[in-house]
């Protein structure tokens, strides 16, 4: 069992290292993620469009606010589940 | 040969009648008289509907109706042609008789779960007619599977372990072969883009490689395990555990006849006479079924249980029908097709007699039947008529078909096949005459009083026996089976 687990883990590791060869270098400003128009758009327009200086906040609450709604749903689910699992009284 | 095609919903109705009846049977399960009343009503309506299409068929027309297209290019279509009508008339007429007989049998033995019995019976009949009227392989497969499933509860009816095991065997053989049938159906569709039956076979099949064609043919024949070809026959004797009317249904009316019907349909309407001839497949298959004919007869010799002996006789006789279709001459095909209803009527007579013996005299084994004819003379006379038919002696109809088969084999210069037919006739005589002899001429072990089966059972026996004789004395009665067969033969051979 342990051996099998080790095998799977090493396989995963090998895949990760394999992918690592082509990943953009650390701190590379030419990386596709940075150069894509999306990132540039956010840096340029975040303040004018949402009035927040923190671009992360602007993204979290505005451009990708819907993700954040999903996030609250996750917390709600977890809370509900923990309550259901651990509470003795009827719900 | 040009045939006019008529659009009509009648074939659908003929199929649906018993399906509707089955619901009514279920609904009135608590009132036996009403329940069985519905069965009768449905049986008569069905026969009427089937019969109503006969004049058109005799006029050389076909009737089609497309119900629904289940998948693109795969419609559920019904088409009535002469060959289908032949089977439909046989099945629907015999349903009336089996119903009457069932009532007598089931009530006499006070069987349990009679509602389920009549329900499944009705569904099985729907499926049989569905098979008869299918216009393509998919429709046929639909009803083929329905027939298997609906007859399973009938085979396992008594619910003992033995019966359930027999039922399982039945299911495994038939569903397993169903898979082969499905496979070959899809294969045909894959190669030709159609699964419709055609009088001269599906043209596209001639184009596929010969090895594939042979493989396809073998898969199809495995798919027709309902016809009881020899390596796949053993479900048939096992299924004898079922109540006798079911055996009659299985072995004469619905299941096995549906099996050979399917086999013949495939041979003549999918592959077609020309392709069978040019590929040489007919000869191999003819030898193959010959083995079944001989071997099954030998098996039958060794059976003491009357129903089992009849079962093996069925295995052997069914192969006659297929052999007929394989003898790709008009005479051979006539013999094969004609044998289908003839065999059905004669075999059902025999089975109903066996059932009458079980109900009245409580006897199943041949060795116990010394002098039984003194107790039940009418039954045993009917039995003798059926037996003579099987052997191929007048007055019953068997000799007519055998004559055509011999003629077909002789035309093709296949003396081996001629020999097979003759040997098998001898073997038939060898296993039927002892029964007749024991029943009529052996001294009974103790005094037997005249005591016939109940009227519900006796009347059907007499009717089928009389019809069996009529085949022999007046085979070409107008509008009768011979006329239908000759149209069917003209269809597939392109006119004589």
């Amino acid at each position, binding site marked *: 069992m342990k051996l099998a687990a080790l095998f799977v883990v090493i396989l995963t590791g090998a*895949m*990760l290292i*394999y*992918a690592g*060869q*082509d*990943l*953009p270098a650390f701190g590379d400003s030419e*990386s*596709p*993620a*940075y150069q*894509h*128009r*999306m*990132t540039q758009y956010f840096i340029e327009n975040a303040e004018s469009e949402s009035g927040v200086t923190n671009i992360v906040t602007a993204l979290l609450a*505005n*451009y*990708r606010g*819907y*993700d954040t*709604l*999903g996030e609250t*749903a*996750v917390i*709600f*689910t977890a809370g*509900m*589940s923990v*309550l*259901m*699992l651990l509470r003795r009284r*009827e*719900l | 040969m040009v045939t006019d095609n008529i659009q009509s919903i009648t074939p659908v109705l003929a199929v649906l009648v018993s399906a509707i009846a089955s619901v009514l049977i279920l609904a009135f399960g608590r009132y036996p008289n009403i329940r069985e009343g519905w069965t009768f009503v449905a049986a008569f309506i069905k026969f009427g509907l089937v019969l109503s299409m006969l004049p058109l068929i005799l006029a050389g027309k076909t009737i089609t109706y497309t119900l*629904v297209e*289940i*998948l*693109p290019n*795969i419609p559920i279509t019904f088409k009535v042609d002469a060959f289908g009508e032949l089977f439909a008339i046989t099945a629907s007429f015999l349903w009336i008789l089996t119903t009457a007989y069932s009532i007598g049998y089931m009530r006499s033995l006070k069987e*349990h*779960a009679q509602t389920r019995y009549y329900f499944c019976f009705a569904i099985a009949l729907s499926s049989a007619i569905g098979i008869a009227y299918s216009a393509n392989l*998919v429709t046929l497969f639909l009803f083929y*599977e*329905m027939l298997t*499933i609906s007859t399973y*509860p009938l085979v*396992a009816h008594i*619910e003992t372990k033995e019966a*359930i095991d027999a*039922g*399982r065997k039945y*299911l495994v053989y038939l*569903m397993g072969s169903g*898979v082969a049938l*499905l*496979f070959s159906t*899809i*294969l045909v*569709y*894959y190669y030709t883009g159609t699964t419709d039956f055609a009088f001269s076979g599906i043209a596209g099949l001639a184009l596929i490689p010969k090895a594939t064609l042979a493989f396809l043919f073998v898969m199809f024949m495995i798919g027709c395990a309902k016809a009881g070809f020899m390596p796949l026959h053993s479900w048939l004797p096992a299924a004898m555990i079922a109540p006798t009317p079911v055996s009659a249904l299985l072995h004469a009316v619905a299941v096995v006849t549906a099996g050979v019907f399917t086999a013949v349909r495939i041979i003549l309407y999918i592959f077609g006479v020309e392709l069978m001839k040019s590929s040489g497949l007919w000869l191999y298959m003819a030898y193959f079924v010959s083995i079944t004919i001989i071997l099954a007869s030998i098996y039958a010799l060794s059976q003491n249980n009357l129903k089992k002996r009849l079962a093996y006789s069925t295995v052997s006789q069914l192969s006659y029908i297929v052999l007929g279709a394989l003898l790709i001459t008009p005479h051979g095909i006539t013999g094969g097709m004609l044998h289908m209803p003839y065999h059905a009527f004669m075999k059902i007579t025999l089975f109903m007699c066996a059932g009458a013996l079980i109900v009245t005299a409580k006897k199943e084994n041949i060795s116990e039947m010394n002098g039984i004819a003194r107790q039940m003379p009418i039954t045993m006379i009917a039995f003798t008529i059926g037996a003579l038919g099987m052997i191929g002696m007048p007055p019953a109809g068997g000799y007519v078909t055998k004559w055509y088969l011999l003629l077909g084999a002789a035309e093709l210069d296949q003396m081996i096949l001629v020999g097979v037919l003759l040997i098998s006739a001898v073997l038939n005589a060898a296993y039927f005459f002892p029964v007749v002899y024991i029943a009529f001429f052996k001294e009974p072990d103790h005094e037997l009083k005249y005591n016939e089966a109940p009227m519900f059972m006796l009347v059907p026996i007499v009717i089928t026996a009389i019809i069996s004789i009529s085949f022999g004395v007046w085979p070409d009665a107008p509008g009768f089976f011979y006329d239908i067969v000759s149209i069917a033969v003209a269809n597939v051979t392109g006119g004589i």
Partner: protein
Amino acid sequence: MTFDIITNNLPALTVIIPLIAGFLTPIIGWINRKLCWYHVMLTMFIVFLITASNLLTVINTGTIHYQFGGWAPPFGIEYVIDLLNGFVCIIIAFIGLMVSIYSKESIKKELPGKTIPYYSIYLLLVTGLMGMTITGDIFNFYVFLEISSLTAYALIAIGDRKDGIVASFNYLIMGTVAASFILLGIGYLYAVTGTLNMADMQNILPTIYDNKVVLAALAFFMAGFSIKVGLFPLHTWLPDAYTHAPSTSSALIAGLMTKVGAYAMIRFMFGVFTPAFVIDMTRMTEILTWAAALAIIVGSVLAIAQSDMKRMLAYSSVSQIGYILLGVGLANVIGMQGGLLHILNHAVMKSALFLVAGAIFYRTGIRNIHQFKGLGKRMPVTTTVFLIAGLSMIGVPGTVGFTSKWYLVLGSMEAGMWIFVLIILASSLLNLAYFWRVFDNIWFGHPHEVEKIKRDEAPLSMLIPMVILAGLCIFFGIFAYYPLHYILEPLSNMLLGIGVLP
């Protein structure tokens, strides 16, 4: 005019309505516990209507694009409804509706003290599945994946059986592995493309297919989704989870979770990567077909070995998932149609079967199929539903199982993979073996016992959804032409890049 705000936002409402309703459930339950059921049923009904309207719009006018907050993609999150997710959404909504109707009595008996969290989590599960299906944004997909996973763990653990908790925990660990792989894959794709929008990504990816990161991302996605759908040999969480969950949870999860997982697999293979990449360059589809073929056989064989009805059905799910993925992996139009059709078919059949198992458990407390003797007399309607759904699973013509089998066999022939033809046909015989065993026990019990048994049918609110599902098993078996012609045929062409969008 006033309806504009609703009609314009229908795609979002598919997800938002169950989400808000899920949040509201505790409040409604606090007012009156009995209202919860009506609340859930009404919500599911509305969601069903919306998905139906969405699907009709897609069929008639083409793909729907909906932008959250008005931010154009790739900056904001976009919902894209095309034939594929329109089709899956309506299945989710319909099965969700059926199971919610069924829940009323079943919950009363199995989870008496936990009505409110059950219904709340139920709606959130639907939200999660719906969100996963409908979204066009890859990270948004992950968020909803986690909602659906968490709710599924909770629904499995909710029962009183302690095995359920262990099963839930094992599922949680496996699910977390899967979700982490998927998150990693998303990160990889983001690193090399810089976008999160699926369509945008699909435009960028072909230029960088020689990048090793892309291949690794595909591998991680496939591994992650294989766990999610329970593809053999990553199915180990599945049987326990399905077996020990409460009846309604099993029906919902078995009917939907794996289907949405399969959907996600299809979406990622053909909607994020391109057919050329997964079919020709990496041969991922080929690997998938072999794994699926193995799953079909192993799942069926293991199902035969079970005597617990729900466990048997769970293993049968393992095999049926193989059908879906086999069809998809064949990568030809016919096989694809078969696989997609089987998503619908299997959702209908499996939900019906699990509902039947639940109804039998509800009335008799029995789950072992050897104890089913005489059940045919006792619960005729329930067992008839079981018969129909079981025959469907076997693939008897006239039922849904036949239609997908037909396409899968034909697709395998088209691909020249005769071994798959053999496997599909053999598996239908294996299905026959394990279902017939149950049929035999139900209808051919000892006659002496049978006579004594009185009719004791499940309550009406449980019967209705079962009967409807059984009806659909036959309906789509006979009228498979409609989904095939209007949805699946153009869809398969679209996925494989043949022809254009309708």
